[in-house]
């Protein structure tokens, strides 16, 4: 029910918004806020209630396909958090847009709700065709909003955005059509099984088609042409949604669709990881040179998401929680920065960072908030960004020191451009005289402040995000199996072992209670393999491990109550 509400109700809300008056932004904004709050509440409920799926409803039949397309929603931790990002960023966008656009606020709200519904659908769809439907549907409201409310070059921006992303996912459509003609239906498992039986050349072609769509959406290095102009010309609240939630659809696609269904060879994984790192460095360099504040933020987003993609393709066991935390952190911080940049633009009448300056003095509350959010985006420890980037770095270190070193370089570079940005926007003295525009209102300030506080909370307790995060757990696998083979229900689950990643993801996240021990079994195993890699002989390793075990056991014996206490605490938390 939650799932249906989250996907369909935004469209209903969009229709209902049409009933309000165009001339009276006050009343329409009230209704819009009400819907916004409701959706945020729903998405929090979704996260709290864990993995769930709707009934699979047959939707339509694609000519030439074996099975039919289902309207089938499935929520796992990753998707649910992305939905929260989309709903909460939309809410804040509605709030900040209230003071930026006086005219025709209603239509803006309609567009935002339509966009939200499409994004939620993308993150929750369990059927590939359904996913693709929403993936494409996202573009349309976004493009219309850009064309209607954007800056000077809005038409060009909207056209570039729409055409670039639609063309980018066209090959995916063809690949998907081919896949559903060979697979039983378009659910993940059937696609994975079908791909196993194709010859490698075909697999690579299909993979390339899928990758292209997601790389354009994220965007990854050579396909980022649409991004800067789009984010710069779109109204700031929309840019925040685009970067905070919509561009996540690309990374989401890598994790939730590419990894489970494609048997990836090492070359592809390596190539993608390096592309991600290249994007990260490239984005940082362009951000360093950008003069337009929104473009700077756009490139910075590109850099962070490049790092996230590199993290995805490090394929380590902590990849999923690491990338998820990074995505949530980036969504919140980049979103907040775009909102703030929008307010700065409104206040000073320009977004050229050379023309800005001295905002800390002219508008101190805004300045403090701006600095605060900038610090949060710097991945300073204690913020969610740090947890994300550190764990991603850790995953990359698994691939070798060089990727980690490059990622570390990105952290330095991000500090460089972000501090330059902060300095140019809020410090120093204003470069020119101007009439003050509208200041930041209390509502805007507090809503952005809440995002900042959330980043701190997630930074100190990332378990909020990483707890109970399973991409495809046993239940889901069985249910999907039931849809595919209704007559022979759960017995067949053993035949669907196809993609190694699915199994990995499911097992990756086991007992939480073992934390309090100084050295867990897992650590020992890790240590063992490391030692082996470093050239220890077998006996040496055995004796070392034995000693370690003895030591850690003695330690555990010393503090058993404490362990129990923490375990209990965690148990109650999980409830």
């Amino acid at each position: 029910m939650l799932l249906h509400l989250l996907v369909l109700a935004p469209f209903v809300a969009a229709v209902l918004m049409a009933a309000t008056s165009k001339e009276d932004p006050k009343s329409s904004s009230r209704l819009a806020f009400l819907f916004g709050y409701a959706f945020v509440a729903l998405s929090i409920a979704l996260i709290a209630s864990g993995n769930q799926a709707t009934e699979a409803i047959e939707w339509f039949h694609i000519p030439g396909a074996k099975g039919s397309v289902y309207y089938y929603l499935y929520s796992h931790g990753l998707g649910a958090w992305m939905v929260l990002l989309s709903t909460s960023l939309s809410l804040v966008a509605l709030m900040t847009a209230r003071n930026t656009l006086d005219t025709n606020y209603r239509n803006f709200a309609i567009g935002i709700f339509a966009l939200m519904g499409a994004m939620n659908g993308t993150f929750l769809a369990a059927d590939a065709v359904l996913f693709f439907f929403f993936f494409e549907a996202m573009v349309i409201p976004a493009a219309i909003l850009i064309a209607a409310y954007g800056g000077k070059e809005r038409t060009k921006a909207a056209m570039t955005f729409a055409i670039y992303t639609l063309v980018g996912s066209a090959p995916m459509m063809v690949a998907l059509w081919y896949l559903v003609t060979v697979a039983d239906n378009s659910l993940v498992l059937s696609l994975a099984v079908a791909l196993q039986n194709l010859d490698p050349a075909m697999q690579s072609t299909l993979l390339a088609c899928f990758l292209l769509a997601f790389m354009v959406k994220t965007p990854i290095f050579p396909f980022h042409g649409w991004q800067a102009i789009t984010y710069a010309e779109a109204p700031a609240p929309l840019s925040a949604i685009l970067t905070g939630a919509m561009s996540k659809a690309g990374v989401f696609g890598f994790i939730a669709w590419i990894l489970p269904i494609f048997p990836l060879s090492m070359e592809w994984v390596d190539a993608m990881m390096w592309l991600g790192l290249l994007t990260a460095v490239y984005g940082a360099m362009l951000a360093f040179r950008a003069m337009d504040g929104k473009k700077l933020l756009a490139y910075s987003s590109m850099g962070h998401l490049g790092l996230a993609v590199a993290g995805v393709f490090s394929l380590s066991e902590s990849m999923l929680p690491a990338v998820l935390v990074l995505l949530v952190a980036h969504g919140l911080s980049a979103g907040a920065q775009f909102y703030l940049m929008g307010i700065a633009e409104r206040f000073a009448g320009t977004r050229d960072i050379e023309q800005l300056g001295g905002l800390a003095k002219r508008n101190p509350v805004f300045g403090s908030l701006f600095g605060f959010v900038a610090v949060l985006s710097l991945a300073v420890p204690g913020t969610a960004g740090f947890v994300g980037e550190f764990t991603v770095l850790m995953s990359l270190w698994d691939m070798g020191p060089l990727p980690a070193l490059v990622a570390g370089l990105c952290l330095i570079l991000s500090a460089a451009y972000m501090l330059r940005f902060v300095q140019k926007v809020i410090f120093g003295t204003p470069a020119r005289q101007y009439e003050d525009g509208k200041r930041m209102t209390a509502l805007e300030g507090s809503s952005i402040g809440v995002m900042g506080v959330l980043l701190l909370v997630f930074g100190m307790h990332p378990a909020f995000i990483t707890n109970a995060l399973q991409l495809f757990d046993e239940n889901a696998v069985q249910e999907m199996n039931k849809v595919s083979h209704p007559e022979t229900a759960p017995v067949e689950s053993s035949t669907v072992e196809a993609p190694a990643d699915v199994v990995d993801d499911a097992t990756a996240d086991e007992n939480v209670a073992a934390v309090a021990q100084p050295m867990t079994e897992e650590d020992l195993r890790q240590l063992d393999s490391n030692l082996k890699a470093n050239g220890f002989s077998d006996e040496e390793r055995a004796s070392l491990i034995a000693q370690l075990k003895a030591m850690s056991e003695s330690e555990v014996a010393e503090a058993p109550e404490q362990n129990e206490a923490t375990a209990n605490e965690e148990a109650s938390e999980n409830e």
Partner: protein
Amino acid sequence: MTNLPLWIIPLFPLLGTILLGTVAVVSSGSKKGPSEGFVGALSVLFPALSFVSVVLLAFGMPEEGIRQTLCNWIDIPMLKVNIGFLFDGLSRVMLLFVTGIGSLIALYSIGYMHGDRGFTRFFAYINLFLFSMIVLVLSDSLLLTFLGWEGVGLCSYLLIGFWNHDLNNCKAANKAFIVNRVGDIGFLLGMLCLATLGGSAILNYDALNKFIEMLIAGGHVELATPIIAIAGLLFFVGCTGKSAQIPLLTWLPDAMAGPTPVSALIHAATMVTSGVYLLARLSRMFSVIPEVLMIVLIVGMLTAFWAAVAGLFQNDIKKVLAYSTISQLGYMFMAAGASAYDASIFHVFTHAFFKAALFLGAGAVIHALAGEQDMRRMGGLIKKTPVTACVMIFAFLAIIGFPGFAGFWSKDLILERLYTNAPFGEFFYGVGLLTAVITAVYMGRLIIMTFFGEYRGPKEKEAHIHEAPACMLFPMVILAVGAVFAGYLWADSLGIKFFEGTLAPVVGVAQDFVVGKLAVAHVNPMAFACFGTAAALLGMFIAYAIYGTKRLPRLHAKWGSAPEGFKADWTFFFDYIHSIFIVMFKAAAFVADVFVDKVLQAIQWTIGAIAEIVGDGVSSFQARKVRVQLTLSLVGLVALTAVVLLTGGLF
């Protein structure tokens, strides 16, 4: 007494930060701002409370320290870290002077920052800094230390750029943060390096020590050494960043752009010594990699010498002190490199007192002269500001190692350990002694130029010179007392070894491990004391000979009014090296922006243009008239029907 939980120590400054931050943000709109008395009281209260709790805990501390785990922090498959605190001999010493000096300097700042627009904001930052610093030294794992480590860097950035309407301050702040970030990445990669060795659990200090013990016990050290050495080097990179050692030393002189209490607290007494703290904390790990220790030793020596020489040529009073700080940090690193961690922490301890006293004194001088920082415009101030002068002279005697003062004991100890413990000890001892002479020269120059001779500033300012208010003098006097007597906690030649005893449980094993292998040369400790005293006296004599006897010329008009230089003189060499990297990066960014991105854009628009051209071409087939279109479509329909009928369907 001991049932105080450890988390209460960082809690107080954190509360202070939140409270003051809220006040600062809420009041920033109003013209007048909140009452300074109220804010000042709050901002001293919180550090003082945490000082009190540290003192209470310190007295009841058992020998092996207190360990408490607060809660779980990060819990994902590869990384399980708890928020846990470790209160042992090392963190006790560090905490005592961090919170103690922190409270004193907060008190001093009430007077110094009086009337500033950002009064509340300043104290919020100071509290945040103290919170981070406490977390840094109190944490029981590397990752939590890293939280404090970046936190202090952040506060340093905020406070250097505190007067942010001046872009030069902002640039200095940015430089400090970015250079520190380079070091931080070293720290971060070092952690990853260790984690490959033993999983994330090894990031806990106890677990790390145990792991090293086990390697030694099992005789596997050689196998793990390469990785540990890399990790050690990376951690050392982190330390060079935070403690302003070669090659990352350029930020500290620029950091003097911040308010003077900040320079005293962050850039002299506490934050910059965290590198030394980390070396001592990881002493067990460093003890198995003597090669890295050798590098530490050499870097420390070069830094100490280089910065001392650079200090000779500064005219800005704070810059002299900045270089002197770098030089003293070099001493500490030399000591750590020679595996004399206790001596190096002891020097951290005494240095905190006399350097903070010097900075606060300099602050009082600057305050008295209404912002003048150029020593060439000072002189003769001993008559106008006697208390400040006395404080600074005591601290001066301490820093040059005059017998009986704090610096004498600690510096002497370091030099002695260098001679006995280090390979090529004689050489390092010689350089250390030479540096001590230079230290005495430039510090003597500072004292003479500031307090003796005649006043060389503009006449009209002379009347306004006044002693600082009591709330500034009180902390200075206490610190001066510390500068005199702190050394007696470990007066080796008098046989008092209290300090060594408190640190022994933490660093003793590591020191014995390295030093035990050496054949210690037996030299009479009195010989070192004599040489040290001789160095101090010689330096003072030289300073007197050069700057004391001849009268300094009055200030030339062409020298300009600003204190010389935002540019860090004498670090130019390293600034130059840094600028090579920066230029390389900028060139790469230029290429990426101007060439690569343009090419990509060109490709993108070319494809678009091709589509457009083709579309134009096709549209010429479009019939002009509606009727013709309709006819054509009918013909098409008929043709299609005919085909279907004749062939029996397409499929």
